[in-house]
Each structure stands twice: as C-alpha cells, then as structure tokens.
C-alpha cells in the first residue's frame, strides 16, 4: 500500500492545487497540517531549500513545488489525465500555466494585497494581464478547453481566492463589464463539478482576509 502524505494548509491555493490533483485521480492521502509560523522538522527536512508547503511525500520521497507535484501525480497515478496527451496541447497548457503562475498570480496578489505605489503599479499591470486572459478565453470555457486542465489549476487562486479577497477589501474592480470572458471562466471554474466539492470554505477565507484588511487599517 503506497504511503502518500501531503504537508500543507487547506486554505492555501498551492496546497489546494495538489489536493485537487490527488482527489481527481482518486488517490488516498494523509494531509498533515503545517503551522507555517512554526514549521515542523518533517517540512524542514523534506524541503530544505525553500522550507515551504506544499510538499508531497510518496513512499518516503519528497516532491516540492506545487506545479512540479501535479506533473508527478499525473505521471505516477492512473485516473483522468490532468495534462493532455498530445505534445503540442501539453506545450500550450504548460505555457498558460507558467504565465498564470509566474506572472498573473504575483501581480494580482500585489494589486489586491499590496500598498501604496507598488499596489497602484500592480493594478495597472493587472489590467493588461487580464486583457490577455480575457482574449485567450474568448472561444473556450476553460484554459484547458471544455474541461478543467493544468493551466486552470495553475490559476486556481485567480478563480477562487482573488474574488474573495476583493470582496473582503470592499473594492471590486475585476468586473464582467471589463473582462467578460475572464469573469465567465471564474464562474465556471468555481461551479464546475470537478472543482466545486474540493474548494475550501468561502466563509473561512472571507473572514481571514477581512480581519487582515481591518488590522491593516486599524490605527497603530
């Protein structure tokens, strides 16, 4: 019986990516909840370079970096494919996953959670990035086509977390008037059967970010 442990935090989009992949493949695993302010010896030993979650430990061997873990899961376990079979389609999926993970996610993060000039600059960059995403989603439901794929999972935080953060901040600027295809994708992602039952609690996330904004705004 293969032993699979996942070190992570369910509210983190990076851990969620891996949980989604494992659940999609029907793989049983043990989630070991990490306290990121007080990292366990197991985490520090399994990911000595970055000391970050998530880490997948399969038969004692650790794999780090969420998108690397997802490729590992896809190559190791039977079940629905996460990446397409065709090499060109795989390249397109990897291209968009990289763009979403490396560029869109950090910029959106700064735009929503940053401060001052850095936040304003990030917001401007975000508008340009969202235009690119909106254009890419013009003729398809998901980045993966008709079904959720590798790139959609790379964008999980954009789909679910960012909308909640916007609501909690009280400032909504990613609207369907400005980005109709992107917002439709977000809606489809959050409501599709492959994802919906695995999403973390919306209320818990909202409360978490709301208190974060309140403490940031509180007089010091």
């Amino acid at each position, binding site marked *: 019986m293969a032993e699979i442990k996942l070190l992570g935090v369910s509210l983190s989009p990076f851990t969620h990516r891996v949980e989604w992949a494992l659940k999609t493949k029907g793989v049983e695993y043990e989630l070991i909840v990490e306290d990121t302010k007080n990292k366990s010896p197991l985490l520090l030993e399994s990911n000595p*370079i970055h000391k970050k979650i998530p880490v997948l430990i*399969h038969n004692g*061997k650790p*794999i*780090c*970096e969420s998108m*690397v*873990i997802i*490729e*590992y899961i896809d*190559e*190791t376990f039977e079940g629905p494919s996460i990446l397409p079979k065709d*090499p*060109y389609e*795989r*390249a*397109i999926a*990897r*291209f968009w996953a*990289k*763009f979403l993970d490396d560029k869109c996610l950090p910029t959106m993060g700064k735009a929503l959670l940053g401060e001052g000039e850095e936040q304003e600059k990030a917001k401007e960059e975000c508008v340009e990035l969202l235009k*690119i995403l909106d254009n890419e989603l013009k003729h398809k439901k998901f980045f993966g086509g008709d079904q959720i794929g590798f790139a959609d999972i790379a964008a999980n935080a954009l789909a679910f977390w960012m909308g909640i953060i916007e609501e909690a901040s009280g400032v909504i600027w990613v609207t369907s008037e400005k980005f109709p295809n992107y917002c439709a994708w977000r809606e489809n992602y959050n409501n599709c059967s492959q994802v919906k039952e695995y999403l973390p609690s919306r209320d818990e996330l909202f409360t978490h970010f709301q208190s974060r904004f309140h403490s940031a705004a509180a007089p010091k």
Partner: protein
Amino acid sequence: MAGEKVKLLGYWASPFTLRVHWALKLKGIEYDYQEEDLPNKSPLILQCNPVHKKIPVLVHDGKPIAESLVILEYIEETWKHNPILPEDPYERAKARFWVKFVDDKCVPGIFGTFSKVGEEQRKIAKEARENLKILEGELGKKRFFGDTKIGFMDVAAAWIICWAQIVGEIVDIKLVDAEEMPSLVSWFQNVLEAAPVLKECTPPKDKLLEHNKGFHKMLVASAST
C-alpha cells in the same frame, strides 16, 4: 517526424535560445534558425508569441511554441530518442524542481548583479552566490546533473556558469568561486567537452563577454541620464 519543418527563432547571445539549440542538437534534429534583430522584432515573432513578444520560439510544422522550458519539454515529448529527462517520475520531478530553482532564484540573481548598482547590487550578488552554493551541494562530485550523461538540468542551466563568470568580470564581483564551488565552476565546460555538437553551436565566451560589456555600458549610460 522526418520532413516536418522545424524552425527556431532566436538571438545569438540569448542563453534561453541556447537552451533550445542544445536540446535540438543533442537529439540530432534538423532545423532552420532565424536570427531575430532585437529590438526590431519581426512580424513572425509578434505573430507566434503575441503574449510575450519574446524569443526563443520554436515553430514545428507551422505551430509555434514559446517559453524555453516549455519548448524543451515539447522537444523531449515529440522526439523520444536520446531522452534528456529521466524515465522515473520521481527523478523527473527532481530535475524539474532544480530547473525551476535556477530560473526562479539563480537567473534573477545573476542578471540582478549585472544590472543593479551599490547596496542593491551587493545584496543581490550575495544571494546569487548563496544560491550557486546550493547548486554546488546538489551537483556534488558529479560532472553533470544528469549523473552519467547530459540531462534536463544540464541543458536548461549549465549556461549560468558561463554567464555568471562574464557578469563577474564586467562588474568586478565574483559570483562563481572556484574554492567554494569546485564542481560547479567546471560544469559548463564539462557539458561542452562531453558533447562537441553543443560546443559548435555555443557562442565563444570572449564574444559573449564583448557583447555584454557593450550592453552593460548602455545600461549604465541610460541609468545616469
């Protein structure tokens, strides 16, 4: 695959283009090379990579693929002989992890040392050295990261040693320390010596040094205006 046209759009001094040359050469794939005159990008580049408008782009049978690491994985999956990734999924994951470490940590450190000045430069250079020491630890006594033969990490990242040495010479800050990184310092040369086909397509170090000296002068001049 024979008869299907392969074209690489690139720039001679770009290490990201070099990655793709290396992968194609190692697999013995015939291809056309089109040198892009940066910054005057051709309509073909803008059409093939509308998102980033950058090289390299591989065009295979009329279909464009952008992003050097994505291209490497595509080449690996399309031409399955002479594999550069290991067969075992865990070893593959390790190779991908280390390549990501290089791209996310080492490359910005080396390029940052080149383009920044003062305290910011010193801080980035220190981090860059620390990250290279981590790589030294992983390389250990091996000649290549692929162990007995050139692998994914070697193709994707051995160039950083050459570039780090060039940057070090231009800005007079040592990034690759032969004492602290005895294996890493020879890594790039080891790869070239093991595969003459790679040496043939790699620009000579002195030409790269001259080119980057000129580039650095431009950066310094534009920063002071």
